[in-house]
């Protein structure tokens, strides 16, 4: 196990070093290195099939890299205990339709070892945050798409993880609530929670501290939104993304 020097400040939330992962002889993640500091709000952008979900699983230690190493808060992955500090909202809502919102939350809360009193309090807090308090006792099957997304988000927040990974968190959520969720994410980050968000919404991407643009299993750029704009001379992240993508393809031909 890697030891962290005592005099160093906080270890980074995530360190990926030359990580490679392939499935059935297809390389999904190709020698990726990345460091995300604690309290950072990091945006992951890339077309579908570019390897975002696989990368997230490697960061969390749910999946093991074929080569290279991954550390979370200085601990070599994969390690089961680190999942306590990890909150995950997947792209699919992953809820139990037969159960009520509260039962869903209670189930996942208990998996994180939350005890009765704390559990009850956290359920209320998280539900309030995503504006679901009055619907908690309804069966999830009766929820709208946006409500399911919000419940899914509430479940990811409930155990107060130090690393929060949100895969497309605001799809199907109305603009007003979306803004309040982003405010909450910013305030969580300010309190030291590291947040990694994948998104397709470009105005959301601009709210991140740094962006990683991923294509075909590799980062084509990792920088602050402002730097990315300046570097490509674009007026929007979308444009910057396209410019960088074209550059990479040009490079490959040469």
């Amino acid at each position, binding site marked *: 196990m890697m030891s962290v020097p005592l005099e160093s400040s906080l270890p980074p939330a995530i360190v990926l070093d030359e990580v490679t992962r392939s499935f059935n002889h297809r390389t999904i993640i190709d020698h990726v290195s990345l460091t995300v500091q604690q309290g950072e709000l990091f945006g992951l952008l890339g077309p579908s099939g570019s390897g975002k979900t696989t990368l997230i699983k490697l960061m969390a230690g*749910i999946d093991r890299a074929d080569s290279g190493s991954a550390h979370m808060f200085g601990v070599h992955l994969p390690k089961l205990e680190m999942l306590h500090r990890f909150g995950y909202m*997947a792209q699919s809502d*992953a809820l*139990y339709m037969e159960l009520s919102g509260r*039962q869903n939350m209670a189930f996942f809360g208990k998996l994180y070892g939350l005890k009765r009193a704390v559990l009850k309090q956290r359920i209320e807090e998280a539900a309030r945050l995503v504006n679901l308090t009055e619907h908690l006792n309804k069966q999830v099957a009766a929820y709208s798409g946006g409500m399911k997304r919000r419940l899914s988000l509430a479940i990811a927040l409930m155990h107060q993880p130090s690393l929060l990974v949100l895969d497309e968190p605001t799809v199907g959520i109305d603009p007003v609530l979306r803004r309040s969720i982003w405010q909450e994410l910013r305030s969580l980050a300010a309190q030291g929670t590291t947040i990694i968000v994948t998104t397709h919404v470009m105005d959301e991407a601009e709210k991140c501290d740094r962006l990683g643009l991923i294509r075909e299993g590799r980062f084509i750029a990792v920088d602050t939104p402002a730097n990315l704009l300046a570097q490509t001379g674009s007026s929007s992240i979308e444009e910057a993304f396209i410019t960088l993508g074209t550059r990479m393809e040009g490079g490959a031909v040469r």
Partner: protein
Amino acid sequence: MRVSALALRIMQQFVRDRRTLALLFIAPLFVLTLMKFVFDGQSVSPDIGIAEMPAALTEQLTSSDADIQSYSSIDEAMADLRKGNLDAVLTVNNGRPSITLEGSDPSTNKAVLLLLQNILREHVNIDTSLVVSYLHGSADMASFDSFGPVLIGFFSFFFVFLLAGVSFLRERTSGTLERLLATPIRRHEIVVGYLAGFGVFALLQATLIAAYSVKVLDMYMVGSIGYMLLINLLLALTALTLGTLLSSFASTEFQIIQFIPIVIVPQAFFSGLFNLEAMNPWLQKISNIMPLYYGADAMRGIMIRGEGWGDFGVDAYVLLGFSALFALLNVIALRKHRQL
């Protein structure tokens, strides 16, 4: 803690899903009832032990369809009958032929009696009225009483297998397994949680089926109902672990259904519903790897022969062994989704 959370969740889901509950509880009773009305026995060539018999009669018996075995004393023959090696023991007492039937299988009883009556009719120098007694069962035991215990085992197995397979699969297709595996739950906790959650319903189902079979359908039952429940529960446990294990190799509900002809139907053939004596002995050995064979054997022993732990204990251990094996393989199969 995590195990109980998972078990509680499964129970909550079940209670909300009325149709599935109906499948689990009502369907077996319905099918059992139908079977009772529909079924009739089939014929076999019986094994008959003979002792202390006139030579002429022995000779005539030996040339008949039955497999005849001679014993030097009636006690030896009776001992083999108790062990289940014989279907009947024939002897002559004070000039009157007297037969003791093993009695578990009414169709075998009928076959033995028919055969003997035909032979004795030709043999005029002794009194032809046959004295019949039963080791187990009785003259008015119907065919259904004999394979009823097997059917009880079969249906608990079948429905639990189906439900466990489908709900574990759904956990995967709905993405909840992925989310579950992003929490610190251990792989074996998932498997044990499933066992506990489903186990409660399996126990309810076993109780209901047992009570219905004995009280309502009036099946022949001389053993302990506690043992009957135990075997039923062990069978359900095996079905549960096998169902969840195999669901790892299916990607849709339809593919779970495809396991039925491969996994369930062969077990029905080898479970004792049909007499396998005519089958190639090498093929008969296949029944050794079929969980249902052991469950059915124990159920029949308990209900018809009133067997105790000493007689069916081995069956129970084998079923437990199967469950443990399947559960372990399932824990390993989950590695596919998370390395830890």
